[in-house]
């Protein structure tokens, strides 16, 4: 029976000796990946505990559709289980997962916009009017984020929401630091423009 030991504090592979549960620290991602490649379901659970939430949130922000985001998260972990043997220690498992999830999101975005050759041109031109019709702040921010080109949205999500270091975000997006900063700056500039009115809410509006 597995023991739900939380994301990072304890390794779920506890043993019981003399009626006491002996736990060891959860191995690092690289070791878990190697174990998963050998079919170790317990190591897989360790990766789920550590990374499922972040992958689900990432997909949720990229797709703006909870059902599709859950499908992407599930598919990402299916690939983790079936393709762990293909992972090489050159890449961090965390960034590998983000890359897989992002590629799956891009596939879905392409299906939503089949006429687009490049999802980077996906910036919807709904215009501020349709965005500002939304009632709640979160919805407005979500709308503004979803209106960004996918690369800008992915960069902002990784750095702002997921707290990845610049070098990690660069590894996920396959970019140099300069290119990442340029992408982030363009994204934030666009968001600032779209959310300008939100910065000064009217008297009757909840912040």
């Amino acid at each position, binding site marked *: 029976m597995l023991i739900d030991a939380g994301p990072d504090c304890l390794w779920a592979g506890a043993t019981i000796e003399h009626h006491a549960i002996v736990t060891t620290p959860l191995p690092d991602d690289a070791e878990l990946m190697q174990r998963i490649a050998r079919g170790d379901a317990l190591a*897989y659970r360790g990766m789920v505990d550590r990374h499922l*939430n972040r992958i*689900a949130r990432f997909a949720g922000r990229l797709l703006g559709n909870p059902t599709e985001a859950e499908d992407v998260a599930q598919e990402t972990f299916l690939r983790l289980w079936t393709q762990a043997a293909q992972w090489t220690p050159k890449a961090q498992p965390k960034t590998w997962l983000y890359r897989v999830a992002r590629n799956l999101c891009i596939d879905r975005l392409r299906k939503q916009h089949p006429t687009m050759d490049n999802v980077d041109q996906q910036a919807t031109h709904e215009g501020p009017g349709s965005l500002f019709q939304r009632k709640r702040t*979160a919805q407005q*921010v979500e709308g503004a984020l979803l209106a960004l080109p996918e690369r800008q949205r992915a960069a902002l999500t990784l750095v702002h929401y997921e707290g990845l270091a*610049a070098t990690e975000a660069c590894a996920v997006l396959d970019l140099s*630091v300069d290119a990442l900063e340029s992408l982030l700056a363009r994204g*934030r500039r666009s968001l600032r423009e779209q959310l300008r009115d939100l910065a000064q809410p009217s008297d009757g509006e909840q912040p």
Partner: protein
Amino acid sequence: MKDAKPMSLARLAELLDAYGAEPERWPAHEREPALALIASDPKAAEAQGQALLLDRQLDGFDVPDASAQLRARVLEIPIRRAVPERRRMWLPGWAIAACALVPCALGFISGSMTSEPDDGWNDVAQLAQLGDISEDEWP
């Protein structure tokens, strides 16, 4: 990082434009000079305040963690799917069907190669074995 070079206002603006106002999002090696500039230059502090406004707005968009149902489905994957090593030996459906059909096909072919034409001799031989035919009845 005591020997860090002082940061220019222009570089701080780039940093704020890209990463926002929170120092923990800035590249580690630039935090100290950036904070030193903000502490010493009111324009730098104002720029950080502007960046903070957008950060706060972005923080208003929260996305839930994975649901319990998703977590359960994801944890079931190793139960529903064979371990990777074993999985590599699996054959696709068409290959399994081919494996099943090949012996049948071989049996059919070998049967048709070894069977003799039905010219009556088989029946006669069987009757002879049973003693139901006399020698002069042989064809």
